[in-house]
């Protein structure tokens, strides 16, 4: 590292990236705040309405059910993806034939476009031709058939299952590479002391990758709060708003309902929720570690 005498050279290096990043990522957040105080349909004059949009959003039942669904996605992701991924990674973290194969297939859904996944799963859940109903029929459990995405009681569950399916592989791979950093000597020492496999996992392995688990939980939460494409394509928030999440509701209100100010108020709340939830979980989990 060295001190450069001419600061303009540094400016030349950093400014192009900084400009694009500011204009197209940071500034829009602030513009969102600004629009959220306006009543505006995108064409006519903007009107300043103060906190009216926020007042309305906070009394909007559909908004609150979209928050609830967002929380459901977060819970399903954290309690579905993380434990399944951790268990699988622990299983595969040994000399096993075909380990590479399991790893490769395990990660595959993560690189597939969400739109492709949504359309595929929409067909899997299809009430007439879908894989699930056909399978239930074939094994004589036809009475369990449902209109999975068409029935408000099942739609959200069906969506959550797809989300878990899509991202288990990501955490599986993260945990697998973290497990490789656990020092072998400590494990051997524990073995000599007569520790069972369970004890080794509980008292050596898990604590030494605890930081990665923590980071994964934060990633998982911030990822699930971003849920949009999947629900937009699979159900567009229906039936009867039963799968609406904050982002799809914001999209509806803004671009279908042409209420830019109202949509921006929802955007601001998405931003606040995301940052808040991430901060809270980081705090909570850090305390637990000590």
């Amino acid at each position, binding site marked *: 590292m060295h001190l*450069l005498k001419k600061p303009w050279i540094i400016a030349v290096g950093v400014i192009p990236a900084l400009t694009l*990043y500011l204009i197209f*990522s940071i500034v*829009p957040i602030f513009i969102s705040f600004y629009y959220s105080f306006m009543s505006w349909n995108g064409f006519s004059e903007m009107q300043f309405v103060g906190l009216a949009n926020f007042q309305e959003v906070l009394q909007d039942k559909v908004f609150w059910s979209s928050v609830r669904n967002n929380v459901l996605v977060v819970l399903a992701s954290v309690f579905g993806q993380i434990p399944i991924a951790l268990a699988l990674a622990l299983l595969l973290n040994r000399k096993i034939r075909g380990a590479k194969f399991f790893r490769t297939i395990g990660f*595959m859904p993560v690189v597939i*476009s969400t739109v492709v996944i949504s359309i595929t799963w929409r067909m899997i859940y299809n009430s007439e031709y879908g*894989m699930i109903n056909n399978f239930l029929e074939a094994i004589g459990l036809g009475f369990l058939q449902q209109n999975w995405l068409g029935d408000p009681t099942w739609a959200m569950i069906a969506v959550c299952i797809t989300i878990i399916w899509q991202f288990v592989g990501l955490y599986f791979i993260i945990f697998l590479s973290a497990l490789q950093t656990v020092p072998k000597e400590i494990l051997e020492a524990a073995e000599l002391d007569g520790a069972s496999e369970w004890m080794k996992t509980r008292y050596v392995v898990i604590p030494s990758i605890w930081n990665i688990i923590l980071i994964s939980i934060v990633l998982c939460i911030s990822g699930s709060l971003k849920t949009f494409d999947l629900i937009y394509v699979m159900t567009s928030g229906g039936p009867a708003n039963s799968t609406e999440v904050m982002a799809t509701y914001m999209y509806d209100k803004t671009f279908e309902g042409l209420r830019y100010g109202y949509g921006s108020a929802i955007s601001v709340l998405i931003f606040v929720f995301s940052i808040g939830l991430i901060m809270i979980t980081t705090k909570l989990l850090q305390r637990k570690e000590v």
Partner: protein
Amino acid sequence: MSETTVNYDTVSKQARKKKRVKRGTIYLVLILFTIVNAYPIFWMIMNSFKTGQEFSFDPFGLPNEWVFVNYVEAWVTANIGSYFFNSLFVGIVALLICILFGAFASYFLARFQFKGRNLLYGFFVVGLLVPIHATLVPMFILMQKLGFINTHLALIFPYVAFNLPITIFLLTSFMGSFPKEIEESAIMDGCGPFRIFWSIILPMSRPALATAVILNFINNWNEFSFALVLINDDSLSTLPLGLANFAGEYTTNYTAQMAGLTMVLIPTILFYLVMEKQIVNGMTQGAVKG
């Protein structure tokens, strides 16, 4: 003495049996995981080769006769060729800009000491937390004002901006790990900072650059939300957007939908299988290091 040997033998036999059962269980779980991961994809590919009738009667078996009409139909009616081109064009241009600007900024952030350096780095990395959907409304208005709506530029700029944080994060930590003697001799020889960047730092960063390129490309290739909001001219649609629209219009022609999905999916999977190691490393690097 013989008694102890026998005893020892039975113990080890039991232990071996127990070990075999354990191994078997592990394999069973891993194989189940593989089936759950891969079967939906396989199901879709198989059915894309069936006639609509065969699909409704026998959605599980292999096709009786492999038909390609679905592919012709999907290709012709869904314009997949043009979507491919758009995705490729937007994805690659955005990637080049992002890598160029990102690498340049990372070089100065990693190799020079200047006031506000850590702050600037932190400011870039915070972008990882910005929820895309909180920026959709202002982005739409911004692009309208700039006259970019329905042009490739409308996607290129946000793609660059939203990929800069991860790019800078990866490249800065990689470039920062080089010993500082690297530049010293070059400076003695009279190289300026730009020359050092092009001839020394950039070539040395190849592994991190490769990871950043792949991550950028996957993100751009799969992106849906910005395309949905900023592009409404079908001839400019990217693959995810075009595919979602196609599936929305041909809701009952399942086999043609599956053919379209398969055409989009196969290149992704091939790319993944070829680059697997780099992709997986790239995805885990950030998390495991932090």
